[in-house]
């Protein structure tokens, strides 16, 4: 059986980092990066990924765009790629990435392997959604999204094993696609958005002595927590439910359809506002005792300030910092790059108030003390 995989390399991804720029979105930044002596990393990383994968010869069909969007690298790695398109003349950009993803979607690939950063992930996701699993080879400097493997070789191997199929150890999980508006960031105004959840292969870690899918149970634990929390919600208290799949479980147990990517407001078991803006929240809060139930967003471990800016400093202050309930899977907390949760509400006093230690709910009757720090 032939397996078909798409390879998308964003050749400029990761160039900003070494020269102190936050990302390479936009022509002007790229020129600046080049001027500062940045080297293209993405193709090197992609080659490492492809080389590490033990592809089954003769059964693999690798689809890619021409030149440094994948063809060159694939050929270097000893594969024979099928070129299905070209980048437009000059520098590749978001449009090329999306065009490649679209071409691959049309050709029914089993997986898209890409080398890039958050921007690349977002561009692909906007085309494929949850239709095609995706896996990132890390190259970019900012990775708030959770679709990246731990290293290039791991990405290659995981992709090959997933495509080979029949391996009990590989599953698919939802992972956040996030991106920061780089233009805003360079003006020191941070703005990140949770775009959605992509399907990503992951290695179900075996348990010692025999193998077991501990991740399944981790999810079951969160599900049970959602059920418990739903059952324990107080009358006449306004609940602000942050975005993400973790908090979504709670809404499901209330029989409500929330907005996965937005903020919802629940009062007495009913959704009173869906996908609320900051202004909506402030208005809804009027005259109500309230709680905020929030997840941990993205691979960097943001509590507030990335992907849930609607829950602004003003909203948090109105609710009160003692009325926050944070919910996350143990696995997510352990994987935090800095062992800490991050807050960046834009209000440094509030960030200071939130800093310190916080109980994160990881299952029914189970909390974990996590350090919280200003980003």
């Amino acid at each position: 059986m032939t397996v078909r995989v798409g390879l998308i390399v964003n050749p400029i991804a990761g160039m900003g980092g070494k020269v102190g720029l936050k990302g390479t979105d936009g022509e002007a930044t790229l020129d600046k990066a080049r001027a500062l002596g940045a080297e293209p990393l993405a193709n090197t990383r992609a080659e490492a990924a492809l080389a590490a994968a033990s592809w089954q010869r003769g059964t693999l069909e690798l689809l890619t765009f021409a030149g440094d969007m994948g063809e060159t690298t694939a050929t270097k790695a000893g594969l024979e790629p099928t070129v299905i398109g070209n980048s437009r003349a000059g520098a590749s950009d978001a449009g090329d990435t999306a065009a490649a993803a679209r071409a691959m979607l049309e050709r029914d690939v089993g997986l898209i392997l890409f080398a890039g950063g958050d921007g690349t992930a977002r561009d692909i996701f906007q085309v494929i959604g949850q239709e095609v699993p995706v896996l990132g080879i890390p190259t970019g400097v900012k990775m708030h999204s959770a679709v990246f493997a731990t290293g290039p070789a791991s990405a290659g191997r995981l992709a090959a094993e997933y495509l080979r199929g029949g391996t009990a150890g590989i599953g698919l999980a939802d992972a956040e696609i996030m991106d920061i508006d780089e233009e805003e960031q360079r003006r020191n105004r941070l703005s990140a958005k949770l775009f959605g959840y992509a399907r990503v292969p992951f290695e179900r870690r075996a348990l010692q002595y025999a193998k077991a899918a501990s991740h399944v149970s981790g999810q079951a634990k969160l599900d049970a927590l959602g059920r418990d929390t739903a059952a324990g919600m107080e009358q006449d208290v306004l609940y602000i439910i942050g975005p993400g799949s973790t908090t979504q479980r709670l809404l499901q147990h209330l029989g409500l359809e929330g907005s996965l990517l937005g903020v919802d407001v629940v009062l007495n078991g009913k959704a009173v506002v869906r996908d609320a803006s900051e202004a909506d929240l402030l208005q809804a809060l009027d005259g109500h005792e309230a709680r905020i139930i929030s997840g941990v967003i993205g691979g960097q471990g943001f509590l507030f300030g990335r992907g849930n800016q609607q829950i602004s400093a003003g909203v948090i202050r109105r609710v009160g910092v003692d009325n926050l309930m944070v919910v996350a899977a143990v696995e997510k907390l352990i994987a935090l790059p800095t062992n800490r949760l991050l807050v960046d509400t834009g209000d440094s006093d509030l960030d200071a108030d939130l800093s310190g230690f916080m109980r994160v709910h990881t299952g029914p009757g189970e909390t974990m003390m996590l350090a919280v720090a200003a980003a």
Partner: protein
Amino acid sequence: MTANAPTAHPYMANSVPDIKQEMLDAIGVSSVEELFEQIPDDHRLKRGLSLPKQLRSEAELRRHLVDLLSKNATCEQNLSFLGAGCWQHHVPAVCDEMVGRAEFLTNVWGSPSSDHGRNQTWFEYCSQIGELVKMDMVGMPVYSYGCAAGHAIRMASRITGRHEVLVPALSDPERLSVIRNYCEPDEMESHIAVVPVGYDAATGLLDLDDLKAKISPTTAAVYFESPSYVGLIERQGEEIAAIARANGAETIVGVDPITLGVLKAPADYGADIVVGTTQPLGVHMNCGGGVGGFIASRDEEKYVHEYNTLNISIAETERPGQFGFGLSCAHQTSYGMREKGKDWTGNSTYLWAISGAVYMALMGPEGFREAGNLIVAQAHYAAKTLGAVKGARVVFPAGFFKEFVVNFDDAGTSVEEINASLRAGGIFGGKDLSSEFPELGQSALFCVTECHTREDIDRLADALQEVLS
């Protein structure tokens, strides 16, 4: 040992000064003390331990232990009729051989490939228990019968979402105490209320009217044993299970597997979960250190996913046609899931799974049938014989397996005094029930097994006759 001529310790290969020095040199430190740098000085014990003299010579050590143990009197030198949760059954020599095999004795974890033989033996233990109780799902052993019952009750509570269990009033106080701990005090949110169900004064069997009065839609499970604590074969199993089922409760049955060559398998009268003791299956009493428990049920996800035990499944290997045995549903135990596991999993009594496997293979269906018939006959002979002694009365005279209650109220003396007299004559009398069940008066629980002979029983009767006369 003298300070200037240290002798290497037989258990420690590196307790030779020049080896220690070479190892220190290899890592570049001058003394072992430096390696403890992490421990703050004010945490350190500033004096040497004050312990009894070292006995490094095996000869000296053996002499010391044998001298101490010679102060014991055993159930071999004496004639014992004690049971009540720890029973004197014959332990086949091959069982002793296998649990003494270093590979079975010293292994820990390992892997399904490297410790294949042990895993297969474990699977064979579970498989044979499965045949005795007629259940397709059997977990690895737990600490004891009472612990098995406790876990099963908690399983039933999780399955039904209910927080009450009905248990026989005439239960073993040892097991019941364990169960009460497992069911938690009522301050705890997940507390399970333990509600006793009375017994029929004439037969000692469960009082079905009381059961019907107490069961309700809040009942998670009905737990009963056959044979019961006082040895009786609970003949109303089918009715009890039907009552439980009608109320949406689980039926948990406790059994002694040595009975199951002659007694109906619990699955055949409606048990949902079966628990029991493993000690009769080829394990010495070990002063109570031989106890172990098992949990079994139908092979349905609803049950299997609630087990706290390690579970061993047969599985193919990567080599075509070959099979091995691996851990199944590991994620639901505490090893994989921390506190949201199903209770906890830890070291248990897995060596007794080895002796159990050997025992059941040696017994076969005919061994269990023969042993069961022999025990039932001898126990009834004993009851009849003792009951004929003036001052003694068998409280529940029919329908028991190996244990029965003898009452001495008519003798005008206490069980304590009777047992003291018997002991002087080299006989360990039955367990004194007088403080556990005051309503039974001066009663004792006697146990007779295949280890006894008719002469032993006659000797007991003669001795009792003498004591009571």
